[in-house]
Structure formats: C-alpha cells, structure tokens
C-alpha cells in the first residue's frame, strides 16, 4: 500500500513540476510566477512577509527574538592555542568558571558560571511555567536568573537561588518591599532590541495573575515608559543608585541598550558608583518589537563590549565595576570571546529559551511555533513540562561552560576570567584596529609594519574631515 502511495506521489510530483517549468518558460515575465524569486531576493523574504503584515494590520509587526541580522562578526575572531612557549593547562587542573559581580557591594553576587539567564519578564513575555523552569535550571547550575521588567512573582523568587531583579520603567518592582528581596538590582534603562522606546501591553491581554504580580487594576494597560518614573535628571539617577545601594547592600547596576553614546552614558553610571553595567547589543532578543527597533537601532554587541571594557580600563574602574554583556551571543565560542573582550559575565535569552524547550518542540510542530509553549497566554503554554525544561536548561549551561573550559586548556589558562585579548587574533584588519586584537595574517612583530600605510588611506582622510566638520557643527550649536 505504502509502495503504491509512494509511486503515485512521485508521479503527481513529476507531472506538477513538469507543467510548472513549462508554464514558467512560456509565460511573459510580468505575468510569470517565477517573478516571485527575483522580487523575494530583492526585498528579502522576511521583509516581504513583514510588509504583508503591516498592510494587513496597519500596525508595526511585533517580531519575536530580535533582529535576524548578525551585526557582530564573532566568526572573524579566533583563539590562539599554545604548545611550547607557554604550556597548555594540565588536564588534571579544573578550570575555574566562577564570577563575582559587584565586588565592592556589601553582599556581592557570586555565580558558578559566567552565563546568566537574561531578563525575560513574566506576562510581558513568558508564562509562569517558563519563568519557574528558567529559575530552576539556573539554580541547579548555580547561576542567576533575571525578572525582566515585571513585578516580583513569588514562584520565581522561590525557585531562584539567585535572582536579579529589574528596577523598571513600568515601576512594577520599584518598591522596597519587593526589591529588598533580590540578590542584585539592575536598573532597566533600555534594551538592545528596543532602545528606550516605550512599550504597551493592552489590558485585554492581561490576566488576573499578571495583574496581581504587576499591581495593575482591571482594565489597566501595562506601560513601560521611555524614562524611569521619577528620574528626569542625572542627579535623580545618582540619588536612586545611592538609595538602592544603602537600602539593600546587594550589587546595583544598570542595563542599557548599546549605543554610539556608550562612553557618555557609562560616565554617568560611574559617577553614580554602580556595581555593574549591563550592555545589551543591537542583536539583543525580545518578546516582540517593531522590526525598525530591532534592525536599525543601537550598536553591535562586539563593539559595545570592547568599547565598554576600554572605557572602564581608562577610568581605572575594571575592578570596581563588573561588565555584563548580552545581545545575540549564540555559541559558547561567542560567550568566551565576549569574556576575552572584557566582559565579566553574560546573559543569554534566546538560546536559553531554545535549550529550555529543546525536544518539547514536538508538542507544537509542525502546526504551531515552539514559542507557543513558553509565551504568556499562548496556545500551548500549559503543555510545557517544568522539570524537563529545567533539566534541559541545566544540561545546556553545563555543556556550554564545559565547552568554554576546553578552550582554556589550549590557551594555558586556569580560569575563564583569565582569557583576554591576547588570547585572540582576528582575520579582519579593521577589527584588529578597532578591538585592539592582533591581525592573524602577519606575525606579532610585523603588526605595526603591516598597518604603516593605513593612515594614508583615503578613508582615514575622510574620517579626519568628518571629525573636523562635526566639531565645527558642535561649536555652532
């Protein structure tokens, strides 16, 4: 029977393909189905469908998981193994992966792996089950999870041995009774996928438990403002950090979208004496955001980390302020490169969610996307198995930490935090100059010689002219 169906299917497919090719060969191009191929290539499949969505709904599409663009060229960096001039780490030496965030805080936060679970809020993004599973998986490995921009959910607090809470622009966690129960406070000023743009969840999409956690009235929308409530000046921000540090003793930091104004933003944070700074690159994920915010706003993670680390070094603040990197970090290789560039720890969101759902994708595919298992009020929310999810996340974090450790043996390092710029080379001359990493094309003692002529390039002249023009403009203003 199966053989018969197989043969019949082949025959039908053959007929259809033959006729389709004959039709495409004969029809005028302007009336030809084949026109979809060049137009899709011109516009891009994603843009094509998102334009259809705009036309259908009249509102910006809310794209999940952030931009599809890989702005940061992580694949242009390679680690440098050692053999004789410095010896590899012996295999019986354990690679230390623990990290302390906010060393100067009264109660510093120590985690067993530099990978933490990114801010993904209950309600605004994820279901209660997904949040509990994230907290359990993170606790099992000994790392922290993050509330995201929400209130304090009791179940998450109970499941998380280390919970970083976001003092947020919605104001839902901003009361002492809530933030005093956290292990670190991250003042949420913005995020890579959305900048500091306001967000709104309509009341019709908010259930009873959501309202309780957020402290919302029935019929009230959940609003994330562009500014923190009560913070309209630099002085108010500095006073807020001081107050939170005094009241709690836990590390107090900020989270911001990576921007070309990075150093100016960080300067204010340093004046406020924050314990850590989280930089979310342009590739950062989100529950849903307008494509323009995800694709056209911010600064790629790789440059943001490098600039932030250099700025902390310039200010002599490397030991006092921990740098947390996030945004589009996909592989353990990306993670370790981020650490080498100067990050102390990192957050992963999209990848953590994929690990969490893992083989449970079969519960929704092929008719619904797997995110339906973890999103608040989605069709398959109740089907997510919390224990299985937590174990898969634990397994993923264990594997990723171990994978980073494997490179350390080859580098002759005994701790993930010891990996530095010197352990990398790059395959791109511009990255070499921008990030301060030696170019792999030429020997270390030929680096300067190789770059000697670069200052004569027209680009360099253009950059100099642009700089003088922009400073002239500033004088005018």
């Amino acid at each position, binding site marked *: 029977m199966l053989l018969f169906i197989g043969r019949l299917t082949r025959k039908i497919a053959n007929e259809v393909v033959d006729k389709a090719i004959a039709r495409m060969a004969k029809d005028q191009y302007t009336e030809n189905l084949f026109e979809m191929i060049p137009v899709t290539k011109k516009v891009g499949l994603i843009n094509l469908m998102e334009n259809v969505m705009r036309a259908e709904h009249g509102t910006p599409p809310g794209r999940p998981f952030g931009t599809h663009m890989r702005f940061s060229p992580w694949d242009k960096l390679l680690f440098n193994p050692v053999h004789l001039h410095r010896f590899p780490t012996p295999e019986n030496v*354990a690679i230390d*992966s623990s990290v302390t965030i906010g060393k100067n805080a009264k109660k510093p936060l120590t985690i067993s792996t530099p990978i933490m679970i990114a801010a993904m809020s209950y309600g605004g993004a994820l279901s209660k089950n997904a949040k509990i599973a994230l907290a359990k998986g993170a606790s*099992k490995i000994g790392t922290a999870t993050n509330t995201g921009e929400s209130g304090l959910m009791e179940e998450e607090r109970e499941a998380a041995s280390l919970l970083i809470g976001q003092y947020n622009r919605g104001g839902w966690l901003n009361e002492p009774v809530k933030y005093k129960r956290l292990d670190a406070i991250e003042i949420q000023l913005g995020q890579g996928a959305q900048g500091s743009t306001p967000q709104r969840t309509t009341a019709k999409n908010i259930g009873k438990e959501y309202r309780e956690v957020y402290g919302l009235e029935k019929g009230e929308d959940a609003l994330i403002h562009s500014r923190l409530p009560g913070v309209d000046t630099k002085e108010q921000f500095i006073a807020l950090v001081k107050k939170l540090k005094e009241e709690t003793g836990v590390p107090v930091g900020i989270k911001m979208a990576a921007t070309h104004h990075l150093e100016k933003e960080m300067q204010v944070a340093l004046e406020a004496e924050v314990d850590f700074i989280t930089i979310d690159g342009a590739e950062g994920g989100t529950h849903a955001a307008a494509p323009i915010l995800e694709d056209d706003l911010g600064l790629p993670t790789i440059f943001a980390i490098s600039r932030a680390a250099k700025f902390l070094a310039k200010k002599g603040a490397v030991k006092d302020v921990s740098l947390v990197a996030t945004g589009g970090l996909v592989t353990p290789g990306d993670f370790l490169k981020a650490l080498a560039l100067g990050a102390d720890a990192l957050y992963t969101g999209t990848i953590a969610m994929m690990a969490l759902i893992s083989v449970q994708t079969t519960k929704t595919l092929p008719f619904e996307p797997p995110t339906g298992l973890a999103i608040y009020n989605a069709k398959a929310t109740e089907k997510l198995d919390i224990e299985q999810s937590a174990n898969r996340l634990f397994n993923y974090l264990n594997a990723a930490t171990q994978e980073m450790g494997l490179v350390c043996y080859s580098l002759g390092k005994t701790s993930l935090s010891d990996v530095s710029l010197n352990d990398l080379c790059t395959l791109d001359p511009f990255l070499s100059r921008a990030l301060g990493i030696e170019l792999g094309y030429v020997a270390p003692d030929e680096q300067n010689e190789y770059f000697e002529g670069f200052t004569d390039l027209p680009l360099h002249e253009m950059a100099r002219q642009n700089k003088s023009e922009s400073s002239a403009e500033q004088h005018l203003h």
Partner: protein
Amino acid sequence: MNENELQQTLSYLSSEINRIETIAGTLSGVESEHYKTLTNLGEDEKLQQLALEEQNASRQLGEIKSICLALSQKIEELQNKMPQ
C-alpha cells in the same frame, strides 16, 4: 564584645573558612573523578545525567573555594583595620 574577643572571633572564622576552602577543593576533585567514572559506565541515560550533576557539583565546589578566598580577604581587611 571587646576588641580582643572580636580579634579572636575573626581568627576563628578565618581558620574555619580556610578549612572549608580545603574541604571544598578536595571534594571538587572527588566529584570530578566521579564524573569520569560515571561517563565510563555505559550509555544509561540516568547514569549520564548523574555524571553531569557530579560535574556540576565539582564546579560549584570550585565556586565555594573562590567565595571562601574572598571571605578570607574580607576578614583579613577587618583584622588589619583593628588596633593591634
């Protein structure tokens, strides 16, 4: 509590933290050996999961060592600030 008693208490805490650090280091090595042993006992899924948990325990004991070291430094700072 007078200064002398406080100094003695800090010394006691410091010595106990050093012991915990040593024990954590030893146990971390033991757990690491368990991981290796368990990964050699076939393809049983439960045993493999136990192996991963042993590996994780080893890592977290390593973390305890780091915490102990940080605590010892804090205590030393306190002791140095006290009049001798």
